[in-house]
């Protein structure tokens, strides 16, 4: 039986040794050598360290933005379910069949802004396309896709011998048994993992992204940035929920454009302003109720333009 004081000491050594700047390993060795029970307690603390990793999946920020009418919108979104029904009705469901005798057949799946589409592959893999998206599938093997534009959520049936690969933003992503979301736009790309893991750029950086990881990379930049996201919210756009943590406004505008079908652009000066919060798209939004709501939630002035909306910085009071 390990005593309480040994457990206390082990917890302290664990706290010290997990610090990246810890260097007094000889003192730790001395302590461990003093009694075999010390190592057992140290291992228990190490297991606790592992266990605590689960905290990374908890959203550190509230999910709904604190805005005057946020709760009302949210409620409406859930009751009305506006886009959910519309999306389901609009979803084109079809099976991908490789044409016989064709070596490398490409199948193009494309959606208009505001349109959702669900693709079923023969192996059971599902790909949900958001609006304004173009995805090219290699029909000869059924395990390679190229996201040319827009956003797609992949629910991959894992096959060790035939990993599913997605090319986006000039980089390859390989699944390790997973559900993940990929965004590709002229400004850059994003990969968010809901379950399992993917390998980003397997032949280069080989960044392994587990559930709840979000990787961003700006176009023409070699720098990738990895942060946390709520895995339960990855791909939530499919039910009309757009959830962000520190996402640049341009990204929010891109998503809104894809999801609602109306073209939304951001003034360059505020394009990189970070936004944290949730936007629930309702049926009313598709019929013109969006502008006032967006103004409040994103703290911008919304100007109507012939072909969409323009988000500008609010004039100082």
């Amino acid at each position: 039986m390990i005593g309480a004081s040994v457990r206390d000491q082990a917890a302290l050594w664990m706290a010290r040794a997990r610090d990246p700047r810890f260097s007094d390993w000889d003192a730790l060795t001395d302590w461990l050598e003093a009694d075999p029970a010390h190592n057992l307690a140290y291992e228990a603390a190490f297991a606790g360290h592992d266990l605590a990793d689960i905290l990374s999946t908890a959203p550190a920020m509230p999910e709904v933005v604190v805005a005057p009418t946020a709760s009302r919108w949210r409620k409406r979104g859930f009751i009305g379910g506006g886009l959910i029904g519309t999306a389901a009705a609009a979803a084109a469901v079809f099976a991908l069949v490789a044409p016989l005798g064709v070596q490398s057949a490409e199948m193009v799946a494309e959606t208009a802004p505001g349109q959702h589409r669900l693709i079923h592959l023969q192996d059971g893999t599902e790909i949900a396309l958001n609006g304004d998206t173009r995805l090219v599938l290699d029909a000869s093997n059924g395990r390679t896709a190229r996201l040319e534009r827009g956003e797609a959520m992949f629910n991959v049936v894992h096959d060790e011998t035939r990993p599913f690969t997605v090319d986006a933003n000039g980089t390859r992503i390989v699944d390790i048994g997973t559900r993940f979301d990929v965004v590709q736009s002229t400004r850059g790309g994003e990969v968010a993992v809901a379950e399992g893991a993917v390998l980003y750029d397997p032949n280069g950086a080989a960044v392994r992204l587990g559930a709840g990881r979000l990787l961003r990379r700006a176009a023409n930049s070699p720098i990738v940035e990895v942060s946390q996201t709520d895995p339960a919210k990855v791909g939530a756009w499919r039910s009309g929920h757009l959830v962000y943590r520190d996402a640049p406004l341009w990204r929010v505008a891109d998503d809104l454009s894809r999801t609602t079908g109306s073209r939304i652009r951001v003034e360059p000066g505020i394009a990189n302003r970070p936004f944290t919060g949730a936007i629930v798209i309702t049926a009313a939004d598709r019929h013109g109720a969006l502008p006032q709501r967006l103004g409040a939630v994103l703290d911008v002035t919304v100007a109507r333009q012939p072909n969409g909306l323009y988000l500008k910085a609010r004039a100082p009071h």
Partner: protein
Amino acid sequence: MGGPNIPALNIVALPTPGYDGRGDGRTGRDMVTSGLSAVLIANRAPLLRFLRARGAGDDAEDIMQELWLKVDRLEAEGPIADPRAYLFRMADNLMHDRVRASLRRGHREQAWSETGYDPAGQDETPSAERTLAARQRLRQVERALATLGERSQAIFRRFRIDGVAQSKIAQEEGISLSAVEKHLQRAYRVVAALADEEQEGDTPPSRSQTP
């Protein structure tokens, strides 16, 4: 990065193969090797001592070899601020991995895979139960940590999840480094007890802790 730096040794020529007196036949490639390998050789004895203290027993030499191979594969990674500490950390993790692996092999394996608990995160099989179990575990951990004060919780999150160094946290919080350690010690005590309970499985958890 500050810290107690050992001057970066990029390329060093080692005296002769068999320098460590083991004559393990790994010659030929040994003439030129990276700084990290050199630090490994220089710290062979204290590392072995550490491995034994960490429960390596008769396997210490084998694990040392494993460490050597790992270091060998790391060559291209660029400079490391404190190579000696880096090697001890590798050794520490290696021993921890072995414990986890043997636990997985043992009879507890089933209980773990049933609840989806995999501290190594190596089981990638997605499933609804796994997600559910993860949520439950998250609640357990949060509840356990909630027995501590707000400050201990916040400091633990900052350290464990945000990966902020303790010296930085001390600055942020305006407290001493040892005060930060104290907060973290309490948090580690709590999560260690919880991990213990998980591993006990069906047997009643020992509740001897809680100071």
